[in-house]
C-alpha cells in the first residue's frame, strides 16, 4: 500500500521552470473553478482557421506552450469537432472555406459555442469588401464571444475564453 502522503511530499518529476505571471495564474485559477462548475471539469476546444494570416493560429498554439500551458486550467485543444464544446475560429471566412466551416460546426455535438479570434474573424478586418471573403465568422455561424486583436496575445485569448465561461455560468 502506497502512503498517500508521498504524493504530496516527493519531488516533482517535471523540470523547474523559472517563469511566473501572477495575472495569468489568477485568471487561470478562476477559469479552472468555472470550467469545473460549468463544463464538468473540462472544456474541449476545436481550433478552425477560416482564412487567417496564420499569426492568430500561432498565438492560439502558444497557449499550449510552457509559459501559458492552459491544459492545467482544464482547457484542451482537441483534434475532432465531435469532441469539442467550443469552436474557436480565426480569420475572415473565405468563400473557399465557407463550406468546410459550416461542416465543422455541424459536426459538433450540442451544446456548442463559437469564439471568433482576431480582428478578421470578428468583422472581416482588413479583408472587408474583398470579393474573396464573406466577412466575419458571424456571417455564417452564431458567435458567442469575439476577441479582437491583430493578433490578440495568448493572454487576451484566454481572457476571452474566461468571458465565455462566465457568461454561460450567469445564464444557468
Amino acid at each position: 500500500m502506497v502512503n498517500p502522503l508521498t504524493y504530496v511530499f516527493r519531488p516533482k518529476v517535471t523540470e523547474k521552470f523559472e517563469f511566473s505571471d501572477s495575472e495569468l495564474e489568477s485568471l487561470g485559477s478562476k477559469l479552472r473553478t468555472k470550467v469545473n462548475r460549468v463544463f464538468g471539469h473540462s472544456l474541449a476546444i476545436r481550433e478552425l482557421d477560416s482564412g487567417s494570416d496564420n499569426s492568430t493560429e500561432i498565438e492560439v498554439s502558444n497557449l499550449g506552450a510552457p509559459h501559458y500551458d492552459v491544459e492545467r486550467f482544464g482547457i484542451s485543444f482537441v483534434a475532432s469537432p465531435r469532441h469539442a464544446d467550443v469552436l474557436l475560429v480565426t480569420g475572415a471566412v473565405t468563400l473557399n472555406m465557407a463550406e468546410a466551416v459550416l461542416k465543422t460546426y455541424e459536426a459538433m455535438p450540442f451544446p456548442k459555442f463559437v469564439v471568433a479570434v482576431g480582428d478578421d474573424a470578428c468583422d472581416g478586418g482588413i479583408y472587408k469588401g474583398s470579393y474573396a471573403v464573406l466577412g466575419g465568422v458571424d456571417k455564417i455561424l452564431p458567435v458567442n464571444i469575439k476577441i479582437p486583436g491583430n493578433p490578440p496575445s495568448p493572454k487576451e485569448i484566454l481572457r476571452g475564453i474566461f468571458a465565455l465561461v462566465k457568461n454561460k455560468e450567469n445564464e444557468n
Partner: protein
Amino acid sequence: MSSNKDTVSSLMPAGPKLRGNYQISGNSAVLETPSVLATRHATDLMIDIAGKEPQIEKGKNNEFYIPLAEEEFLKTVPALSEKGFILTSLFCVQDLEGKPGFTLFYIFRMNSSTDVFAFMRHVRKETTSIATVFPSACWYEREIRDGFGIEFTDAFDKRRLFLHEAYPEGFHPLLKSFKNRKIQTVESPEEAYPFKQLEGDGVYQIPVGPVHAGIIEPGHFRFSVIGEPIFNLEIRLFYKHRGIEKLAEGKSPSACIPIAEAISGDETVSNAVAFCTAVEKIAGIEIPERANYLRAILLELERIYSHMGDLSGMITDIGFPRMTTPFLILRENIFRQNEFLTGSRFMRGTIDIGGVKKEISGESLSKLDLYLKIFVPQFESAITAVYTSSSLIDRFSTTGVLKKKLIAPLNLTGPIARAAGATYDVRLDHPYCIYKDMPPERAIKMAGDVLSRFEVKAAEVLNSASLIKKLIASILEGAIISETTEFSISNIPDGYALSMVEAARGQNLHWVYVRSGLIDRYKVRTASFCNWQAIEHAVLGNIVPDFPLINKSFNLSYAGTDL
C-alpha cells in the same frame, strides 16, 4: 545600340564576347562581376536567337526588362532552359503603361548572378503555355487563367487554381473591369474538383483536410497509397484565398503596408520590407543607414522565432515533448523581445516606406543583446540534447528526401533547398538592406532529409543571433526615416519595380506597379508557392505516418501561398 555580333567578335577575337554597355576596354582579363557576366549571357542569348541586340530596359538594382515579340519569345524559352535559367515568377498585368491588353512577365534568374531578367510578352485572350519547358510554370499559368481569364491553349493542366467551386464560371477578379465587391457564389457546385486518379492493384486514396487534426492552416492532401508507402501525393491549396492582390489595387502605397504584413503571419517583417523596398526603388528613396540596421535586426528576429517553431514542431510530430519544451520557452521569449522592441509580438506596424516607423532606443537594443547572451547557450544545449537522442535521429534521417536536381526546375529556395545542397540565399545573392556589408553565414547540408532541414534551421538560428549581435554593435545613431525633399511619400512617381527578400521560408518576390500615385498592380510570390511542389516529391516512398513530420520540416505557409 550600334554594335552587332560580328563587329564585337572581330574587335576582340581572343577575349570573351562583350556587348553593348558592358564593353570593357583594355585586356580581357579584367575582373567581371557576376552582374556583367549574366547580362552578357542574356544579351548573347538574344543575339543568337533573334540575330539582333535585345531592347534591354535597364531597371534599378540589376533588374532588366526585355520586351519580346511572340516569335522571339517562342525561340527564347527553350534556349533559356538550356542555359540553365531559373523561372522565378510569372504574372500578368493588364493595360501596362496605358497599352491595352495583357502583358505577361516571365521572371528569370541564373545561379551565381545578381541579375534578374523580366521577359515581357504581350498577349490577347489566348496564348501558349511554357509548362512543357518549365514545368513550374503550370501553377502560375493556372493562376493567370483564374485571375485574368487568359487561356493557355496547349496547357496540360487547365483546372482552376485559386478560384474553388464556390466561384461562378467566367469570373476573373483581377480584370480591371471588375471592381472589388461581394459576388454571387455557386450554392451547390455540380462537379467536384478532379483529382488525379491513380489506379492499380492495391492502390487506394486517403483524403486529408482542408480541416486538419491540429492547430494548423487549411489545405487538402490527396494521398494515393499502396500498403503504407505513399505512391503519389496531390496537394490542393488556396482555401485561404483572401484576394490580397485585388485588395491592394487602387490603394496608396502607404495604405498597402498592412496588406503586405498580412500575407503570412510569421513573415510580417519580410513582406513589409519587400513591399517597401519595391516602392522605394520606384521612387528612388535611399533609406537612412540606421533604418537599414533596424530592419535587418527585425528580419533576423523573425527568422529566429519562425525557425524555432519548426524545430519544436518537428520534435512534437514524432511525439517527444520533453525535447520540444526548451524551444517553445525560448521562442516565447523571442516573442516578448519583439513586443518589447516594437510593441507587437509579430513586429507589425514597424516597417514604413523610407525606413522604419518606430525608433528603437540604444537601451532597448542593448537589452536584446543581453538576452541573446542567455539565449545562445540555452539554445545550444537544447540542440545538443536533440542530437544525442538516437531514436529521434532514426526518425529524422533519410526521411522525406528532397533531391537536389529538383531545386532549379522548381525554383526551390530557403532552408529546404540549402538542406539539399543549394547555396542560394537572397541575402547574399541579391543583397538588400544591410546584407551587402554584413553578410550572414551560409548554412548548407547535403542530404536533403528531415535531419538536414533540422540542422540547417538550427544553424540559421545561431547565425541570425550572431548577426543581430554584430548589427547591434555597429549600429549608428541617426534618422530612421528618409526625409525626401523632391516628393512626399504620398506622391510616388509612376513606375514599376521588383524586390526580393529572404524570408524564413526562402525567396519572396514582390512586384509593384504604381500609377498616378496608387497601386495599379501588386504581385506577390512567396517562397511557399514554389516550395509546396517539393513536398509532392519529397514524400514519395515514405510511409503515411511520416507525412506530418515531413510537412513540418518544410513548414510552408498556406496563407502566403493562397493570398
